[in-house]
């Protein structure tokens, strides 16, 4: 395509550069300009919204990630205090519990990233699968006398079937209707949990985890650090799997579907099946996270299947930066800690002594988080990672060509989802 730019005055080169597939569809006129293929990606090999990075930097990023994981592995053995972030030194169960929660939420946000950031699917029903993991495992452990791993396997089987059924129906529509339909299905799940059929789900009270068939090292406050390591393992595994899915053929196809469904159809791929695959993978992963969540919390609560949870995941992904894996992780950790700290703040004497007009909003963590979220969507479309990247880019360029010099991906991804 570069010949076009060189010899723009001669029409022959221009028409020769016209990709055959485009003229046939006739839907998006005039895609023949030079540079188009560079921006949109060649057919079948669309870049998944990522910035082309020099391999050196990518290697450095992986090395940093590995070092970070190593530090996290050692954390329960160390005595690190982060006042204002952690409730106590890093080896205490309270801190480990919070950190484990952060990692599970980060992992769950990653699975949501797979839906929204990769496949462009705005689902409001992701909690259904998280909740299916939580309640599925809890109910099976409660009622069947089988060990943990078979119980998890059985739960997984149920989730796979559920995700296929719901996914294949919901994906008949796309964009906003898809959001509404997934919400409706998740709501059905939430309602069933609330109704407490035959006393199986515990209704509003939830279920306490039955520990009879669990291995000892996962039970009790003294073993919090084992659960912490389990959560860390889940986060790392989910990160690796999501990375792998994204760079696989299916991941590329999903990104291509997100950008231009028609184009993919022309190439002979089935957008519907690609999206269903991503939907199911994401559901299965989040259900596993739900199972570990159950072990960590030693109980199932209705909130784990509510629309609120899905919205929380969505907020995490958007806060972190849509389309970025690290964004999802950072968003998940940031949100979980902030939520925890804001709850502490809300109950503090300092807030309680304020006049009503300040006390009421400050004593509602969700008010602050909701407002923060609105502000991020309005003013920081790239979320935390996007903004950091822009700032870094601006500094490197010495404030010259600032603004959206890089490919402004998060907004594009959101547009594709519509």
């Amino acid at each position, binding site marked *: 395509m570069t010949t076009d730019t060189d010899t723009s005055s001669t029409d022959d080169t221009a028409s020769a550069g016209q990709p055959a597939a485009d003229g046939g569809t006739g839907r998006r006129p005039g895609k023949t300009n030079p540079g188009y293929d560079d921006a949109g990606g060649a057919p079948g090999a669309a870049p998944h919204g990522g910035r082309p990075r020099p391999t050196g930097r990518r290697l450095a990023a992986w090395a940093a990630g590995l070092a970070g994981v190593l530090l996290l592995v050692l954390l329960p053995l160390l005595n690190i205090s982060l006042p204002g972030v952690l409730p106590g030194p890093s080896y205490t169960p309270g801190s480990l519990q919070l950190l484990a929660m952060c990692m599970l939420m980060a992992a769950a946000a990653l699975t949501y990233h797979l839906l929204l950031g990769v496949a462009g699917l705005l689902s409001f029903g992701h909690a259904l699968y998280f909740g299916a993991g939580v309640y599925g495992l809890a109910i099976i452990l409660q009622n069947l006398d089988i060990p943990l791993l078979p119980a998890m396997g059985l739960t997984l089987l149920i989730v796979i079937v559920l995700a296929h059924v719901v996914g294949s*129906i919901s994906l008949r529509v796309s964009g906003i209707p898809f959001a509404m339909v997934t919400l409706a299905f998740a709501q059905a799940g939430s309602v*069933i949990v609330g109704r407490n059929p035959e006393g199986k789900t515990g209704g509003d009270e939830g279920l306490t985890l039955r520990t009879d068939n669990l291995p000892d090292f996962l039970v009790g406050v003294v073993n919090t650090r084992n659960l912490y390591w389990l959560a860390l393992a889940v986060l790392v595994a989910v990160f690796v799997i999501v990375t792998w899915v994204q760079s696989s053929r299916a991941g590329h196809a999903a990104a291509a579907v997100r950008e231009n469904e028609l184009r993919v159809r022309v190439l002979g791929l089935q957008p519907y099946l690609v999206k269903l695959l991503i939907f199911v993978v994401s559901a299965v992963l989040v259900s596993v996270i739900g199972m570990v969540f159950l072990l960590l919390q030693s109980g199932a609560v209705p909130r784990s299947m509510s629309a609120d949870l899905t919205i929380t995941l969505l907020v995490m992904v958007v806060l972190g930066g849509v389309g970025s894996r690290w964004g999802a992780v950072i968003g998940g950790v940031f949100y979980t800690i902030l939520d925890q700290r804001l709850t502490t703040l809300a109950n503090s004497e300092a807030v309680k002594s304020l006049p009503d007009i300040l006390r009421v909003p400050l004593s509602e963590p969700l008010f602050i988080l909701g407002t923060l979220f*609105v502000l991020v969507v309005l003013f920081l479309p790239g979320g935390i990672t996007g903004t950091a990247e822009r700032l870094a880019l601006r500094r490197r360029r010495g404030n010259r060509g600032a603004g959206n010099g890089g490919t402004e991906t998060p907004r594009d991804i959101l547009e594709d989802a519509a």
Partner: protein
Amino acid sequence: MSTVVLLLFTGLGLGALYFLVAAGLSLIYGLMGVLNFAHGAFLTLGAFTGWEIARRTGSDNWGTFLLSLVIGAAAGAVFAAFTEFVLIRRLYQRHIEQVLVTVGLSLAAVALFDGIWGTDPVFIKGPAWFKDTTEILGARIPNDRFVCIIAAVMVLLALVFFLKKTRYGMIIRAGVENRSMVTALGIDVRKAFTLVFTIGGAAAGLGGVLASHYFGYVSPMLGGSLLIFAFIVTVIGGLGSLTGAAIAAVAVAVLQQFANFYLGGTGDFVVVLALALVLLFRPTGLLGRTS
């Protein structure tokens, strides 16, 4: 027989509430492509405003009730207009981000309601006549059902009149079909956006006051729980179709009541099943655009 009639009227009353929420949702989505998660918050604000009016002016007379309807609708309308003007408009054409903003607003608003009015339901009393019953075909039907039904029918008629007979109504109908062509005729369609949001907010606020009487209480969760069924109603009715919303609202609510009674409390589940069936056989909804 009397049970069937009672269920039918209870369903119609609930359907009236669904319609009042869904009407605005459907018009907003149809015209602007915005899925408004804050719509439940409009309703809840209307309900609490109505409750405050009732609390301050002595709750059990008709004057108070009518006043609370008007003020509740006004509160919903003002909140909605503010939402469109301050948040939605800045993200013109960015539909997903518009959804995200309404999600954030809804989180913040519900939390604020929690902070102001508490998380527990507050109970409300209307005119004594509401709790009396009227006998129809042997069924003793609580009168508040009729109030909801009459109010929803009046709102429906007013909306139809507005859409069919006024220039702005015409602009909105045209915009639902093809928004960019409306601007290409030299019309500032953004004014219609604010208007549709305001109307939707007013209907939701009105619905909030009525819902508080129908259920007998107000809580910060009131809007959210009705909103989900209103979403289902708009999808089944066909996004952007007011008539579709009205038909689907009644169908969904009546189905829900009957399933709850005859199929052991499975109403919500049956409604989602109905949604799945509609999507399988008619993805655009009953009266949705086919394209």
